[in-house]
């Protein structure tokens, strides 16, 4: 009996790459696929590393592939936008070492700014698409993808979705196969995408897709289970297939392991056997539209939402509506109102004093992507825009221009973290240096990519004393870009930070402030906790307004009067609340107060 283990789909992707003789893996962290690289980093005999952004990650993997190494690159759905430029041209190149791009979509937006459907990229880029539905399949499909890639000289995309990425199941483990790397064989016609070469490649791509269409028709990745009554055929893929199985409906199922290109001919034949054909797919009607375009009478989005995840409950409801399964009485508990729980900046988070200051200063803030996006939520509500990685630096220029045209001369502030700044803020900065508008850029340099679990950035070195770590000196970089007004602050010195921010907001032209406190969570920073001296507290709620998880109002025993209270177990001693208290009622538990 072969060895088995329980692992998540993300972990199974990593295992599959290792077993398949993978050599080079790259990624940029983004939910729901972070754990793929975290797992890859544990495997020997191959090189796995985080890149500065998805575009660079993809390019590293492309380089490794054309030099003959089996390569994998993983990212979240919106990362593909950043990487789309090399991807759209690389797809014209006949790959050498197997190349697989693993993408995690986020139906339901559990940790993303949009819900884009990567399947459309596969059609746009002429790339075959595999969609596993379990951890076992995730592992197997990596090998399949690499084989398809090498056989047809194509990149292959494996698409996962949030719940699938984190779902765990039993996986059969195999041994690692040796896949030697042949090295770079120079071949301009193959690797220089410029006419006349790239003109020829259009035909190469077209022939490749024709061959892959034939493969899709006969591939064992397409699994068909026939019901005895031949009434309804459901075409589905990914996690939806597993949810559907759970319902135990008496239907035929075509599970697409390869969902682009579609096996249109086979589906046509199967459709002809059934009275009703339903496409069960999350997000956009990608399969449904393609089948309708092929002249097949199928239904889908009539019964299932175009947005959010489809849970087993949603699928049951849709199939009841479609008359496929009988309606059933459910005996669930009544749905009562339960107070919501939105994410909140951690205790001791260095972003907290910055948002508090910006709110007091009534700043108009152009936001960016990271933990500091939480500045959008109450009680701060200071970020007025949130779009995509690094977008704040370009957008703020445009807002400033149009504001001037509208006669509004309020100063503008942008906030961006170190991870996002190095990911895609540098070119925005280069374009912003000579601005004459009143723009203040706050770089929240917490020395980590915090939102995705604390991966390193080029400024991690300043905080982690490790001689081997290379890094980038942020103030020097800004000066080298030609920024004249650069200031560095420790934002736990509240008053000083406030003065610097306010004076930068008065300064015409570009001011850059680097706030240097590191991430409290990632670096596990903890100092003696603070407490409220309830004899001094005047219940003014200034400390509540800094919005730290340990601080709440609670009634003193035997009274109705509420005083501020700090939970000593949660407080990490950053001192910010004590600095905003107007009556100095918040004190350190250190024996000698600071």
């Amino acid at each position, binding site marked *: 009996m072969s060895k088995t283990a329980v692992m998540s789909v993300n972990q199974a992707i990593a295992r599959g790459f290792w077993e398949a003789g993978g050599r080079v893996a790259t990624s940029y962290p983004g939910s729901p696929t972070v754990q793929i690289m975290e797992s890859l980093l544990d495997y020997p005999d191959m090189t796995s590393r985080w890149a500065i952004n998805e575009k660079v990650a993809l390019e590293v993997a492309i380089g490794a592939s054309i030099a003959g190494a089996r390569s994998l690159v993983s990212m979240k759905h919106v990362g593909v936008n950043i990487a789309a430029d090399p991807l759209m041209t690389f797809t014209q190149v006949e790959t050498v070492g197997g190349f697989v791009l693993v993408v995690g979509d986020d139906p339901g937006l559990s*940790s993303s700014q949009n819900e884009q459907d990567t399947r459309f990229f596969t059609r746009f880029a002429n790339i075959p698409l595999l969609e596993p539905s379990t951890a076992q399949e995730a592992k197997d499909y990596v090998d399949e993808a690499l084989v398809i890639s090498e056989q047809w000289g194509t990149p292959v995309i494996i698409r996962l979705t949030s719940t699938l990425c984190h779902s765990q*199941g039993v996986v059969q483990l195999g041994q690692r196969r040796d896949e030697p790397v042949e090295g770079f064989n120079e071949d301009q016609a193959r690797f220089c995408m410029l006419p006349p070469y790239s003109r020829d490649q259009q035909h190469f791509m077209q022939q490749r897709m024709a061959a892959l269409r034939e493969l899709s028709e006969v591939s064992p990745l397409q699994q068909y289970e026939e019901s005895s009554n031949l009434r309804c055929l459901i075409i589905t893929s990914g996690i939806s297939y597993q949810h559907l199985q759970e319902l135990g409906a008496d239907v035929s199922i075509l599970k697409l392991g390869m969902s682009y290109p579609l096996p249109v001919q086979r589906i046509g034949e199967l459709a002809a056997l059934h009275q009703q054909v339903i496409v069960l797919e999350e997000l956009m009607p990608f399969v449904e539209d393609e089948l309708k375009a092929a002249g097949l009478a199928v239904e889908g989005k009539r019964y299932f939402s175009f947005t959010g995840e489809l849970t*087993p409950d949603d699928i049951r409801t849709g199939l009841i509506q479609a008359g496929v399964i009988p309606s059933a009485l459910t005996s*669930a508990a009544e749905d*009562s109102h*339960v107070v919501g729980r939105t*994410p*909140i900046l951690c205790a001791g988070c260095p972003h907290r004093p910055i948002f508090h200051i910006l709110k007091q200063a009534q700043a108009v803030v152009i936001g960016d992507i990271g933990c500091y996006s939480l500045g959008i939520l109450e009680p701060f509500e200071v970020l007025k825009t949130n779009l995509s990685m690094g977008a704040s630096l370009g957008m703020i220029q445009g807002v400033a221009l149009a504001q001037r045209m509208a006669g509004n001369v309020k100063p503008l502030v942008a906030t961006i973290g170190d991870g996002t700044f190095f990911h895609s803020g540098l070119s925005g900065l280069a374009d912003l240096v000579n601005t004459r508008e009143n723009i203040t850029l706050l770089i929240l340099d917490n020395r980590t990519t915090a939102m995705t679990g604390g991966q390193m950035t080029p400024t991690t070195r300043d905080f982690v004393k490790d001689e081997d770590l290379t890094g980038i000196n942020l103030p020097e970089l800004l000066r080298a870009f030609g920024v004249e007004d650069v200031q560095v602050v420790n934002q736990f010195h509240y008053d000083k930070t406030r003065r610097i921010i306010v004076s930068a907001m008065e300064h015409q032209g570009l001011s850059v402030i680097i706030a240097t406190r590191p991430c409290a969570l990632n670096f596990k920073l903890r100092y003696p906790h603070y407490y409220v001296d309830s004899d001094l507290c005047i219940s003014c709620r200034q400390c509540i307004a800094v*919005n730290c998880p340990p601080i709440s109002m609670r009634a003193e025993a035997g009274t109705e009067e509420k005083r501020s209270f700090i939970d000593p177990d949660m407080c990490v001693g950053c001192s910010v609340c004590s600095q905003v208290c107007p009556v100095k009622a918040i004190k350190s538990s250190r024996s000698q107060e600071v």
Partner: protein
Amino acid sequence: MGTTSIWLAGVGGQGLVLTTRILTGVAFREGWDVKATDVVGLAQRGGKVWGTVRFGTKVHSPLISRGQGDFLLSFEDLEGLRWMEFLKPAATIIMGRDVIFPNRVLLEKEEYPDNVVSQFRAQGFRVTALPTKTMAKELGNARLANTILLGNLSRHLSWQLESWEDVISQNVPPKTIEGNLKAFAQGRKLVFPGESPPEDRG
């Protein structure tokens, strides 16, 4: 055997992911097919987190349908309440009493419910409410609270003690193995017919 479904509910930072992994590991070791999931991402910032573990002869979906959960492991009162509709009538709820105010309660815009246990009972669920936070602190490590809960859950599952102990030992930091096994044993022997008093309440 049909599928048994366990829902886990808590707040980011409470260690739900590790608890899910342990539970999944023991089910697997006991020879069951198993599917599980946990929601991570933004949740790291004090948001709501939940997980599922489903085991049986053959399990397809990691998700639990409304009204289908057999057990709820609640790490925080409000979060336990949130997923009630996913439980079967007369499901078993094992609560580690803990209260972490969500943002709107911190900001005094909404009230934290003060009758979570009675809301569960009113629905006909079987509730065991344990002061796991206090018990864990008495054992010298607040992070042992979840293991006490697992210990109590183990009373309801006919799995070998050895499987639990092995999987816990493989998954917790080596220095905490002894403490975790002690916490598990405590949870396993606890029978709380009545409600325990809420702690750390204002």
